[in-house]
C-alpha cells in the first residue's frame, strides 16, 4: 500500500514576486516580470529583455551565510526558495532536523556561473590554471541540494537533478516516489536557475529569443525570453500533514517521464503525447478528468506547435484550458516546471485557471488549444497537468489533484 503525497508549502522566488501572496497575485492577474536588461544590451546582445530576479537571499536564509565564498548565487537561491517553502508549510526546525527529510533540486545551469567566472579569468590571464581557488571550491556538483539541505538541517539525501528545462518536474516526481514508498517523510523539491551568459548567448545564436515579449501559443510568437528564479515546494505524506493541521494545496497523483531520443534541440509531438498518456496511466486518470494544463509553452514557434499537437493527440478537439506561466516569467530553465507546479497548486486550491498574457489569436498550429487568454478564468479545476520539456528530448508530465 503506497502513501498519498501532498504539497503543503510553496516557495516561489520569482521576478514577479517572492512568496505565495505576491506570486499568486501576479500569476492570476497576468502581471509580467519582463523588462529590459541594460547590462546585456551593453554587452552587445541584440535581445536583452529578461525576467531578471531582484532578490537578496540573505533576507530569507537563517543558517547559510550569503557573504562568504562557500556558496554560489545559484546555491543561495535554491536554499532561499527551500526556506521559503518550509516557512509557508509551517514546519518547525525540529521536525526537519529529526525526521526523515530530503532535498531534491532540479536545475539547468547548476554551477555554470562559477565555470563562467573561471573561463573569464582564464581568458584574461592566459589559461585555466590562473584561477582563484575560491571559485574551484564552488564547482562541486550537488551543491544546490547540499545548500538547501544545510540551510534546513535535513537528514536524508541531497540530490541535484540537472535535467535541463524539465528538471523541477523530475525533482518533484522523485520526491513523490520517495515519500509514497515510505523511504522519506518530507521532501523539499523544485528547481533553481539564475541566468548565465552561456544561456543568453546560446539561445540568441539558435534564434530562440523574442525581442520584447514572450507570447506562448499566439500567432505572433517569435521566441522565448530568459527568466530566472527558484521554485521549491514541500512534499509531505498526507496523514502526517493532516495531523499537524497543515494547509494542503494539492495532491501529487503521479507523473510520466520519457525521451524523444531523436534530436538534441527539436521536440517531437508524438513523444510528448506518449509522456502525457504515461502520466495519466500512472495517476490512474482519463484525459477528460484534466481541468487545466500548465503548459511548457516557451513561446518559440516549433516548441509551441509540437506541444499543441501533442495535446490534440491526447485530448482531441476539446482540450482543457491551457496557459503558460512563461508569458509573465520568461523561461526560468530548471525552475520553469517548478513555477508551473506552484501556479497549478494555487489554481487547484483556490479555483481558477491563470492566464497566458500577450495572447491575441492562435495560428494554424495552435488553433485547437483552449488558451486562457490574458485574464484568469473563474473555473474550479479538479486535476492539473504540468508540462516540462528540455534539450535532448527530455519530457516530464506531472499530475496534481485538488484536495477535498
Amino acid at each position: 500500500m503506497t502513501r498519498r503525497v501532498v504539497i503543503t508549502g510553496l516557495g516561489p522566488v520569482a521576478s514577479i514576486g517572492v512568496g505565495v501572496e505576491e506570486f499568486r497575485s501576479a500569476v492570476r492577474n497576468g502581471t509580467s516580470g519582463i523588462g529590459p536588461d541594460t547590462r546585456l544590451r551593453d554587452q552587445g546582445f541584440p535581445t536583452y529583455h529578461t525576467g531578471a530576479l531582484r532578490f537578496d537571499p540573505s533576507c530569507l536564509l537563517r543558517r547559510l551565510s550569503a557573504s562568504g565564498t562557500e556558496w554560489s548565487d545559484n546555491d543561495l537561491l535554491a536554499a532561499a526558495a527551500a526556506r521559503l517553502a518550509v516557512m509557508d508549510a509551517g514546519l518547525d526546525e525540529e521536525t526537519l532536523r529529526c525526521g526523515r527529510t530530503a532535498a531534491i533540486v532540479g536545475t539547468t545551469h547548476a554551477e555554470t556561473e562559477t565555470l563562467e567566472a573561471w573561463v573569464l579569468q582564464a581568458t584574461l590571464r592566459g589559461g585555466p590554471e590562473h584561477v582563484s581557488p575560491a571559485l574551484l571550491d564552488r564547482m562541486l556538483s550537488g551543491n544546490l541540494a547540499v545548500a538547501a539541505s544545510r540551510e534546513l538541517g535535513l537528514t536524508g539525501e541531497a540530490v541535484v537533478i540537472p535535467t535541463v528545462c524539465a528538471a523541477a518536474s523530475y525533482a518533484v516526481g522523485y520526491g513523490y516516489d520517495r515519500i509514497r514508498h515510505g523511504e522519506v517523510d518530507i521532501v523539499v523539491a523544485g528547481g533553481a536557475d539564475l541566468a548565465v551568459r552561456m544561456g543568453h548567448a546560446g539561445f540568441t545564436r539558435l534564434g530562440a529569443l523574442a525581442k520584447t515579449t514572450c507570447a506562448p501559443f499566439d500567432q505572433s510568437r517569435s521566441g522565448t525570453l530568459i527568466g530566472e528564479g527558484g521554485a521549491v515546494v514541500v512534499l509531505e505524506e498526507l496523514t502526517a500533514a493532516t495531523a499537524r493541521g497543515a494547509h494542503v494545496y494539492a495532491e501529487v497523483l503521479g507523473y510520466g517521464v520519457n525521451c524523444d531520443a531523436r534530436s538534441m534541440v527539436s521536440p517531437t509531438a508524438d513523444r510528448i503525447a506518449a509522456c502525457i498518456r504515461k502520466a495519466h496511466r500512472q495517476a490512474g486518470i482519463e484525459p477528460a478528468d484534466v481541468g487545466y494544463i500548465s503548459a511548457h509553452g516557451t513561446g518559440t514557434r516549433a516548441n509551441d506547435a509540437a506541444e499543441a499537437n501533442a495535446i490534440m493527440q491526447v485530448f482531441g478537439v476539446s482540450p482543457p484550458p491551457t496557459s503558460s506561466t512563461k508569458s509573465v516569467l520568461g523561461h526560468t530553465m530548471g525552475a520553469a516546471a517548478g513555477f508551473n507546479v506552484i501556479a497549478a497548486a494555487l489554481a487547484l486550491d483556490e479555483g481558477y485557471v491563470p492566464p497566458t498574457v500577450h495572447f491575441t489569436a492562435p495560428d494554424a498550429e495552435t488553433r485547437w488549444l483552449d488558451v486562457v487568454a490574458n485574464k484568469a478564468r473563474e473555473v474550479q479545476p479538479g486535476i492539473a497537468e504540468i508540462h516540462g520539456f528540455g534539450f535532448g528530448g527530455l519530457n516530464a508530465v506531472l499530475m496534481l489533484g485538488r484536495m477535498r
Partner: protein
Amino acid sequence: MSIAVITGWGVVHRLGMGAAAFTRGVWSVVHGRAGGRQTTLGEYQITEHLGRRGIGSLDRVAGFAVHAGGLTLEDAGLEVDEEIRDDVGVVLASHAGSMQSTADVVGASYTGRRPFDVPPQLFPNGALSASAAWVAMRYGLQGVNATVSSGQVSALAAMAYAQNMLRNGQASIVLTGAAYEHTVYSSVLAEHARHQYGVTLPQGEGAALFAVELADRVPGQRVCAEILAVDVRGASLPCSQSEIATALGDCIGAALRSAGVSPGEVWAAVTGENGSPVWDRTERQGVCLGLGREPARWVPAKQWVGEMWGAAGAFQLAVILGLVRVDPSGDEETVCVLTSVDPAGPVGALVVRVLLPTRGVA
C-alpha cells in the same frame, strides 16, 4: 519490493574496453603485470569505435558514455527494437557534464566579435544532461532519461534513482553509470584537490555503464550482480570529520539492514579512497562504524582506474565486478559494500552481491 539486478555492463577505460577486457585489465594491475599507471585515454577517437555516422557534435565525455552504452547493451544481449524502446531508459551521474564544451561556448562568447558568436552545435552539450541524451539518441532509448548529481556520491545516487524508475514502471531496463573526461579544466580541479585535501591519485577518465532490471523480470542466468541496497545522504549541518564518518556508518548500517546482510558476510569494502589522508581516514572510520568491525578486505578501487569524482562510484562497481571474477578468494556469490564520501557532506553506500559466471554465461 523487487531488487535491481545488473544484466550486463560496459566500460571504456585505459585498462580495457568492454567488461571482459576491463576485467583482464584489472587482473593485470592487481597482479602487478601491467606497466605504467596511465589512467586516461589520450588520443581516444570516438569515430574509431562508433564510425562517423550519427556522431554529430558528440564531445569527449558524451563519446565515452555512448561507447560504453553500446558495450553494455551488447554485454546484456539487449536488442532495442520498437517493442521495448519506450521501456529502456538512461540514468547517468554527472559531475559537471563537459566542462570543456561549456568552456568552449563561454570562451567563444567572451572572445568572439559578438557575445553570441558561439558554436551552436556545442551549446546543448554544455547541459549536464547532454551525455544521457546522446546515449538515448544513439540507441533509440525512449524511456526515462535523467541525470543525477551529488558530488562524489553521484553514481550511487544515480543507481538509487534508476532503481526507483524501475519500481515505478517509468522503464523496465535502465542503463545507469557515469562518464568522466580528463581536460585542462579537470586537471586544474585535480591539482586544487591535491593542495586542499592531499589527494594523490592521478586523474582517470572513461565511462562505466550497467544495464539494470528488476530481479523478478529476469531469468537468473542473465544476472551478473544484484543491487541489494543503496543509501545516499547529504550531511545536513556543517560537520566535523567524525560526524561525517558517523553519517557514513549510519548509511552503511541502514543499507546492510535493508539488504538483509550481516557485516560478517561482507567480502570487501570497496571504498572511494583517493590518497587524501583526512578523507581516507574518515571513510575507513565510517566503514568500520557501519560494519561494527574492520572489513575482511579493503578494496580502494580507484587506485587502479584513477580519480573520476562524480563518476567514481560507477568505476568502483566496475572494478569489483571485475575483481571478484579474477580473485580466487572470492566465492560464487560475493557480497561487497561500496562507499562514497564527499567533502561537501554527501555520503553513500551500496550493497552488491556479485555472482560469478559459473553457469556458462560470461
